[in-house]
C-alpha cells in the first residue's frame, strides 16, 4: 500500500474496512471466542467435553461419510461428463451441458423434495410408468444412501466445471506429441489427458466436498426424517429446540464444521493452483470419434439427464398440480389451487417471496458497488490490510451459511449501540448475513475484470486531473461494469432461493422463501411445498434466460451453464 493515499481513497478504504469488519470479521471472531472461551477465559476442557459427546461424534462421522462418498460419486460423474463434452464428437453438447449443469442452479431443498416425491410410494411419476414401490416401510431416500446419492448428483456439475476448464487449458502440443508417438484415442485419454487434468479434478473434488458438508437443503430434507444427524442438521435442530441459549455450544460445533471446511478450501486452493497449467496458444481441441458407439453414448447420457433431472422434476410438478399428497394426477384431479395458495391466498408465502426478492435486490445493489471498490484496492493497491479484507470476504463465503448465521446471531443478539434495539429476528440480520456471505461471489468476476484492464487507463485519467471518484465514475466503472453485472447475476441466483443462511435467521415477521419448502414439508403440506418449489425453479429459469439473453455483454465464461 503506498504510504500516501489521497483523501477520497482513504475514506472509501475506511468504509470497506468497516463493511468487512462489521459483517464478516467481527461476527466470526465473536463465534470463535464464544466457542473457545465461553465465559471469557479459554476453556478447552469444555470444548473437548462437548466434542466427545456421542451425539456430536455420530454427527461428525456421518458428515464425513456422506461428504466423502458423495464426493467420489460427483468426481466420477463430473469427469465422465467433462470428458464426453470436451473430448468427443458427441452431438447436442450445448443442450446437454445446459441440462447437466442446471441442477446446480436449483435450490437443493427443492431438488430433495422432488426426489422424495419421485420415489414416494404414491409417486405420480412412477405410477404413470406403471411402477410402484412397496407401501409402508421407510422412504428409500430417507437414508445415508439417499443423502449420498443426491449430494453426488447435486455436486457433479461442480466437478464437471473444473475438469472441463482443466481439459480446455490442456496444451494441444502435448496431445499432438502423444499422437505423433502413436497413441490412439483411448490410451491418449487415460495416459495423457486425464493425468494432465488431474489437478483440475482434485480441485473440483475438494469443492464438491466442501459444498457437501454445508449443503443444508439435502441433508435436512432427507437426514432429519431418516434420523441420520449430520453436524449441520444437529446445529439446526439444537437451535430450534433450545433457541439462543444453545448458542455457546453451537459455536463449538460451528467451529468444528468451519475447520473441516477450511481444510477443504485450503486443499482445493492448493490443488487448484497446482492445476493451473498456463499455456498460450491452445490449439484445436481433440475430437475423439465415438464411431458406432456414438448413438449409444448419446442415449446413455440423455438417459442420465432423464433419470436424475426430468424424473424428479416432473414428480415435483405433478405433485404441485394435485389437491392432496398421494392423489394420482389426471384431468380430473388437476388443479392450480396450490399455486393460487402460494401466490395469492397464503399471505406468509407471498410475503416470503416478496421479502426474498427485496432482500436479494438490495444485496445485489449494495454488493455490486462494494465489489467494484474493493476489487480496485485488491487488484491495484494490494497491501496487507486489503489482503485481509479479501481473505475475510472469501472466508464468509466458504463457511457453511448456517455457521455464518450462528455468528450473526451471536454478534447481533444484543441491542446495537446508539440505536438501542436488536436486529435479531428482523430482516436486517438476514440482509447483514447476505451481504457478508455473498460478497466474495460478487467480487470474483470483478477481480477478473480489473485484472484484464490496463492500469494505464486509470493513470491516464489521473494525469488528466481526475480524482479518485471521478476516475472510478468516468473510466473504471464503465470498463468493469460487465463483470460487476455478472457478479450481480450470480449473487441474485444464489441468494434468491438460498436456505442455509436464513434458516436460522427467519422469524415470524421476517421469512424468506428458501426455508419455506422445508417448513411446508415438515408441516405436511407436500403439495403446497411442491408448488412453491416449482415457482422457485421458474424464477431461476427466468433469471438464467435473461442472463443468457444478455450474455454477449458479459465477460466470457461467467455463466456456468453455457458450453
Amino acid at each position, binding site marked *: 500500500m*503506498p504510504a500516501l493515499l*489521497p483523501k477520497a481513497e482513504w475514506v472509501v478504504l475506511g468504509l470497506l474496512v468497516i463493511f468487512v469488519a462489521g459483517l464478516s470479521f467481527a461476527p466470526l471472531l465473536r463465534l470463535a471466542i464464544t466457542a473457545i472461551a465461553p465465559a471469557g477465559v479459554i476453556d478447552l476442557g469444555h470444548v473437548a467435553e462437548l466434542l466427545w459427546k456421542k451425539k456430536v461424534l455420530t454427527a461428525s462421522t456421518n458428515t464425513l461419510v456422506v461428504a466423502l462418498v458423495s464426493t467420489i460419486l460427483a468426481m466420477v460423474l463430473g469427469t465422465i461428463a467433462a470428458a464426453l463434452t470436451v473430448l468427443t464428437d458427441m452431438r447436442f453438447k450445448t443442450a446437454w451441458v445446459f441440462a447437466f449443469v442446471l441442477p446446480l442452479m436449483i435450490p437443493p431443498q427443492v431438488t430433495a423434495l422432488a426426489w422424495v416425491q419421485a420415489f414416494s410410494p404414491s409417486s405420480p411419476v412412477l405410477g404413470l410408468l406403471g411402477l410402484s414401490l412397496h407401501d409402508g416401510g421407510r422412504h428409500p431416500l430417507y437414508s445415508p444412501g439417499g443423502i449420498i446419492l443426491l449430494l453426488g448428483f447435486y455436486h457433479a456439475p461442480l466437478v464437471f466445471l473444473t475438469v472441463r476448464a482443466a481439459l480446455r487449458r490442456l496444451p494441444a502440443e502435448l496431445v499432438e506429441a502423444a499422437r505423433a508417438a502413436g497413441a490412439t484415442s483411448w490410451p491418449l485419454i487415460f495416459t495423457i489427458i486425464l493425468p494432465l487434468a488431474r489437478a483440475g479434478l482434485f480441485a473440483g473434488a475438494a469443492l464438491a466436498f466442501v459444498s457437501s458438508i454445508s449443503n443444508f437443503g439435502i441433508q435436512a430434507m432427507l437426514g432429519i426424517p431418516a434420523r441420520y444427524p449430520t453436524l449441520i442438521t444437529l446445529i439446526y435442530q439444537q437451535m430450534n429446540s433450545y433457541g439462543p441459549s444453545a448458542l455457546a455450544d453451537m459455536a463449538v460445533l460451528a467451529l468444528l464444521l468451519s475447520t473441516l471446511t477450511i481444510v477443504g478450501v485450503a486443499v482445493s486452493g492448493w490443488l487448484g493452483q497446482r492445476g493451473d497449467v498456463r499455456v498460450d496458444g491452445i490449439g484445436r481441441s481433440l475430437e475423439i470419434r465415438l464411431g458406432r458407439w456414438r448413438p449409444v453414448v448419446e442415449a446413455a447420457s440423455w438417459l442420465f439427464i432423464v433419470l436424475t433431472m426430468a424424473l424428479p422434476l416432473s414428480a415435483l410438478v405433478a405433485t404441485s398440480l394435485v389437491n392432496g399428497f398421494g392423489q394420482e394426477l389426471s384431468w380430473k384431479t388437476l388443479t392450480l389451487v396450490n399455486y393460487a395458495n402460494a401466490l395469492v391466498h397464503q399471505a406468509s408465502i407471498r410475503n416470503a417471496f416478496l421479502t426474498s426478492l427485496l432482500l436479494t435486490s438490495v444485496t445485489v445493489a449494495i454488493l455490486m458497488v462494494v465489489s467494484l471498490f474493493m476489487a480496485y484496492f485488491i487488484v491495484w493497491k494490494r497491501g496487507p490490510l486489503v489482503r485481509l479484507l479479501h481473505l475475510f470476504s472469501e472466508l464468509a463465503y466458504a463457511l457453511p451459511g448456517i455457521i455464518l448465521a450462528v455468528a450473526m446471531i451471536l454478534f447481533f443478539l444484543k441491542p446495537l449501540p446508539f440505536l438501542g434495539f436488536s436486529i435479531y429476528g428482523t430482516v436486517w440480520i438476514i440482509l447483514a448475513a447476505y451481504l457478508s456471505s455473498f460478497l466474495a461471489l460478487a467480487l470474483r468476476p470483478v477481480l477478473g475484470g480489473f485484472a484484464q484492464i490496463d492500469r494505464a487507463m486509470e493513470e491516464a*485519467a489521473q*494525469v*488528466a486531473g481526475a480524482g479518485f471518484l471521478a476516475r472510478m465514475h*468516468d473510466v473504471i466503472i*464503465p*470498463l468493469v461494469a460487465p463483470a460487476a453485472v455478472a457478479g450481480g447475476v450470480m449473487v441474485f441466483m444464489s441468494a434468491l432461493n438460498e436456505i442455509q443462511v436464513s434458516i436460522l435467521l427467519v422469524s415470524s415477521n421476517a421469512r424468506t422463501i428458501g426455508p419455506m419448502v422445508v417448513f411446508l414439508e415438515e408441516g405436511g403440506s407436500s403439495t403446497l411445498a411442491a408448488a412453491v418449489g416449482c415457482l422457485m425453479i421458474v424464477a431461476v429459469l427466468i433469471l438464467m434466460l435473461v442472463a443468457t439473453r444478455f450474455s454477449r455483454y458479459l465477460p466470457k465464461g461467467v455463466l456456468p451453464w453455457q458450453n
Partner: protein
Amino acid sequence: MTDIVINDLSKMYGGKRVLDCVAMHIADGEFIAVLGPSGCGKTTLLRLLAGFETPDEGTIQLGDRIVSSREANVPPEKRNIGIVFQNYALWPHMSVADNVGYALKIAGASSQERQQRSRDALAVVGMENLAERAPSDLSGGQRQRVALARCLAAKPSVMLLDEPLANLDVHLRAAMENEFVRFHRHTGATMVYITHDQSEAMALADRIAVIDRGRLVQFDRPRDLYREPQSEMVARFIGNGQVLTVQDVRPDAEAAIVSIFGKDHRVRARRSEQVRSSARLSVHTSAMRLAQPGEDGFAGKVERVIYRGNHSQVDFLVTAEPDLQLTLHAPADVAIPSDDTIQVCISDGWVIPAAA
C-alpha cells in the same frame, strides 16, 4: 516556469535499488530523452516524475515546488503533467473527441471551450476528421496521434512520454518523430521522452540522459554523448561505439598522443587528461578505414564481410590482440576476401576519462 530539479533520487523495489541517486536539472521547455537498456529504470523514473510512485530518497521539484519526497507526494492529478503511454491508454468507451476533451471536462471547462480546444488539439496532429470515431476503429499510428492530442489539449507544463513509438512499424516511426519535433515546438512544454532506441533519442532530444542499472551515467547534448562519452558504457551504447585499449597517453594541448597497437595517433581527450600508461579509447566505425597503399596502419584478419548496399561491413580481429573484434565500413565496390589480412587506419578517437 517549470524546470524540473531531480535531487539524489533513489527508488527501491523489494530491497533492490532500481534508481540510485539520480540527479538532474531539466530546463523549462527543454526536450530531454532518457535512454538506457531494458530494465535500467527508465519507466520508474517517469513514474516518479508523474507521481505514481514515491521516492525512497531524494526529491523532485517542479518549478519551485517540491512534489516528490519520502514524506510528501503531490498526486499525479495535481501536477499538471501529461503522459503519452506506450500502449496509448485511450479509453475505449469514449469517442476520440471525448478522450481528448476529458482533462478539460475535469477542469470544469464549458462544453464550448472543450469542443474548441479538442478540435484544435486534434488539428495539430491532423486527426480532426476522426473526432467522432471510437479508439478501437483507429490504426496504431492514429491512436498514437490521439494520445498526443489528448496530452496536448490539457496544456500540461511537463509532458512525459514512455517509449511512444515502440509499438509502431519503422516507417511510421520516422513520420512520428517529425510529429514530435513539431509538437514540441508548438507547445513549448518541457518534454521527457523515454526510449531505448539511441538513434531516436539523438534525432529528437536537446539533451540525453543515459541511465545504466539505475544510475545516471551521462547527461549531455547528443553530439557530446557521441563524441565525448564519459564512460565505456556510453561509448559502446551510443552510435555502435567500439572501445580499445591504448598505451602511453600523453596529453597534448586539447588532445593527446596515444599508442594504438604500437603506433602513435593523435586523438581527442579532455583538457585535464593526465599522463597515463594505458587508457580506453572510444572509436566510432566511421573513424576507421582501410589504409591506402603505403599508408601506415595496424593489421587485422578479416572474419566476415557483410554486404550492406551502400557499404560493406567488415568484421576483423586485430592481429596484435587476437581477442579483440572490431568493425569498419569499407566502400561497397572494394572486394575483400575473408581470411585476408588488412591494414586499418584510425582517423579519430576519444580518450575515455579515467573513472573518478
